[in-house]
């Protein structure tokens, strides 16, 4: 996992190399049954460009308002998936959104996934930060390092 230099002061960008074909990653990213597992949300219905979906955070001990809308913007198969959202917002109809964009790229050894969230100048940053604050972070990091250890040891 790497953190690249953000294109601007109001953007977060993260990259991760996944050892799997791009089609497999795209499926996990855009199929709601799989998405709900790794993103820790309950979500109804398929992702369709222009469609608004309601998500319910399934993080344990989630504080604040755990339900929010996600409006899908772009779905370019195996390439780009983007949405607008405002998790943690008190007003679910708020137009103070950030944009989230996933970009997939075929590289040696698998697929490079880049996620970019932008537009933090338009939102209440504290609420956005708190929306997923109480989570299973420690466990996830431990599981990830255990997985890496196991694959290196094998």
């Amino acid at each position, binding site marked *: *996992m790497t*953190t690249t230099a953000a294109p*601007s*002061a*109001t953007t*977060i960008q*993260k990259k*991760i190399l*996944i*050892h*799997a074909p791009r089609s*497999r*990653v795209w499926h*996990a*990213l855009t199929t709601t049954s*799989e998405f709900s*597992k*790794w*993103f*820790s949300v309950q979500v109804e219905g398929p992702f369709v460009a222009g469609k608004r979906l309601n998500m319910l955070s399934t993080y344990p001990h989630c504080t604040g308002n755990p339900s929010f809308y996600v409006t899908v913007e772009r779905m370019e198969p195996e390439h780009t998936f983007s949405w607008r959202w405002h998790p943690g917002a008190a007003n679910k109809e708020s137009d*103070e959104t950030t944009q989230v964009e996933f970009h997939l790229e075929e590289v040696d050894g698998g697929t490079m*996934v880049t*996620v970019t*969230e932008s537009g*933090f*100048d*338009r*939102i*209440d*940053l*504290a*609420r*956005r*930060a*708190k929306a*997923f*604050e109480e*989570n299973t*972070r420690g466990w*996830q*990091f431990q*599981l*990830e390092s255990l*997985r890496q250890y196991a694959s290196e040891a094998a």
Partner: protein
Amino acid sequence: MQAKRLKSAAARSAPVFAALGDQRRLRLLARLCSGGPGSITTLSSDGDVTRQAVTKHLRVLARAGLVRAVHQGRETIYRADTQQLHQAHQYFDIISRQWEEALARLKNLVEDP
């Protein structure tokens, strides 16, 4: 974090990022951080930025709590106030970490059969 402190920080964090979303203001703030306090005259002395533009940008930075104005005689001296910046940075770190975790979970799901 105290609820009251969180609430006031929340009210200020959006203007902080709006204020930072401009290269000239970022440069101005960087100069105040590295070069110490300055007046409008010293801040507009080096080059292509007019006094009016500097005044305008300082006002935006001051509203966001990123700089403080101190009156010294007939002059106003501006200095960087990094507390706001630090607070906003902490929120940014939290969100950043959340994305790292989400991507790690995506990786686990996809790679583990």
